[in-house]
């Protein structure tokens, strides 16, 4: 059955499903409400499976790694992604090694949910895109869903899979509405098509995919440009091969990323597509190389807006080959 639900509700339902299905799932986080967090109602149903942490990110993230190694399925809701920097070592330099060093005997499927990107007026220290830093860690799955269905699938995949996971979520997706089919396969594909068209391809991740969709809709209406928009649901392991396949079927591909260019997930995928498909027309649109400033009017000069995506795609489409 497909319903239309807000993004945050899909997230909460996935969590409820996992808590119902598996008594080893425990949630570590504060009781802040949607869109920041997703425990509405569920906390009351499973009070003993919600743990309230002190402001000790390093110990808490590491404890989740240990708990996962010992058989629990902890999911930490940390809030702002940069708080993770205080416990950076846990998911970057501990959890991923557990299986490798035990010759496959032990896994540490701890799940970390953070709010990444620029939420507007969060300030330079609260708005970051750590997905750029996390995509090169072998064994650490990294997801950037963009729709109710994909956040649902991602939460279920994270809490049933055997790898440590970071879900780089986005505050500004919280109220996005979209279809959700809870019964559909939760086998998360690395790409989600948000619309299809023949004239070109836009590849985004997280919020940028929604903005790209808006830009593409407007280009379809206003400029008769018919575009495909794909979201990178999975950033690691890298979905570049799937993107290359899709890119090959379109006259051009524009990559849109909220991260700064250097180290951006989009740029890696693009480099592999360029290697695979020499001569393919490729364009990279990222945040400009500055901080995400506090004032929203300044921020709009920095991260790709619907308008800037639209203009970039339109200009690129018009360029002679």
């Amino acid at each position, binding site marked *: 059955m497909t319903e239309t639900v807000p993004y945050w509700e899909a997230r909460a339902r996935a969590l409820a499903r996992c808590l119902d299905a598996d008594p080893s799932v425990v949630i570590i986080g504060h009781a802040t409400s949607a869109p920041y967090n997703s425990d509405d109602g569920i906390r009351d149903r499973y009070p003993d499976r919600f743990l309230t942490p002190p*402001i000790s990110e390093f110990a808490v993230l590491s404890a989740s790694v240990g708990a996962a190694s010992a058989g629990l399925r902890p999911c930490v809701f940390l809030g702002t992604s940069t708080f993770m920097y205080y416990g950076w070592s846990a998911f970057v330099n501990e959890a991923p090694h557990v299986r490798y060093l035990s010759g496959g005997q032990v896994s540490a499927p701890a799940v970390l949910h953070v709010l990444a990107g620029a939420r507007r007026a969060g300030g330079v*220290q609260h708005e970051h895109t750590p997905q750029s830093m996390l995509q090169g860690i072998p064994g650490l799955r990294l997801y950037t869903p963009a729709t109710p269905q994909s956040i649902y699938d991602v939460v279920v995949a994270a809490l049933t899979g055997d790898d440590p996971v970071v879900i780089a979520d986005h505050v500004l997706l919280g109220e996005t509405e979209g279809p959700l089919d809870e019964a559909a396969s939760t086998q998360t594909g690395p790409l989600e098509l948000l619309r299809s068209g023949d004239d070109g391809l836009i590849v985004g991740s997280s919020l940028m995919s929604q903005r790209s969709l808006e830009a593409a809709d407007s280009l379809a209406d206003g400029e008769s440009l018919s575009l495909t928009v794909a979201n990178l649901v999975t950033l690691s392991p890298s979905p570049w091969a799937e993107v290359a396949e899709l890119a090959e079927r379109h006259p051009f591909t524009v990559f849109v990323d909220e991260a700064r260019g250097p180290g951006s997930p989009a740029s890696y995928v693009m480099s592999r597509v360029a290697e695979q498909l020499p001569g393919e027309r490729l364009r990279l649109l990222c945040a400009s190389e500055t901080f995400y*400033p506090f*004032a929203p009017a*300044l*921020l709009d000069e920095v991260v790709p807006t619907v308008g800037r995506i639209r203009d970039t795609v339109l200009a690129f489409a018009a360029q002679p080959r």
Partner: protein
Amino acid sequence: MSAGDLTLLRLMLQARRFDEQVLRMADRIDGHHHVSHGLEASAAALGLVRHEGDLVATNYRNHAHLICLGHDPALMLAEILGRPVAPQLGRAGSMHLAAPELGVLYTSAMVAGGVPQSLGYALALKRSGAGVSFCLFGDGALEEGVAHESLNLAMLWALPVVFVCENNAGEDSPSLTAVAEAHGVRAAVADGRRPREVVSALRDAAGHTRDTLTPSFLEVRSAEWPGNAAFFPKDVTGPTDLSAAAAQSGSPWYDADDPVLAEARELLAEGVPAERLQAVEAEVTAEIEAAAEHALTAAPASASLAEVAHSDVWAARP
């Protein structure tokens, strides 16, 4: 302070009126902001005890600290509103307010972010002889390991840091001095609802640090202001009214917890006429109203928004 001196009251009231103004403007402010209601005693003490040359590390809840150090409330409000007004240009917002000329070089909004940086300030100051470093943080900062590392490092390197923990975790919460003492740091407690006690305790701690060039730790215990309880602060207690100091107001906060009214009561008890208090109140109220006006009208930077967003990222190459 001599009897009848209204300096302490004025500083605290400036901080309070400023934050009341912030709360009144909340619908024009993007994003989070934190007010200092109830923590004015340590802020005022900081303003009174800091010497020129001393450096200060504050945190996301910095309004009162900056006001009491003497920062311009109009510039602060313009920044909190995100206006592109120099020097912070709307890039910082409430949580990163700073004022280098007053010793606040930079403000970290991470819990405990400023604590270890204040050690670096102290290292530089110890070498230059220019002063000591003040470091202000909430009780939550002591949940972060880096605060413990910092206490230890300050002792090991003998750094002149005055750690000030603004503990608003509630009456029943344990004292945090044992943590400092476990690292050998001299520690004391003061009651944040008794501003004069806070001033003399901070003077004492800073004196120790100035004399010995080693760290000291002061825990200031205050009640949490009820308006902080929600995700965004709300002015649930209503604006502060000094005339309420003359009698019980019926509000538990104002009667028992508010350091501003507590100081007003001390002054009245000393025999300062209520009119002098009212005069100070009127001046401060007018001052903050003027600042709000100025914050909204101050000339924005001449640079474009794009330039403002992208400048000061890299140093000009030598």
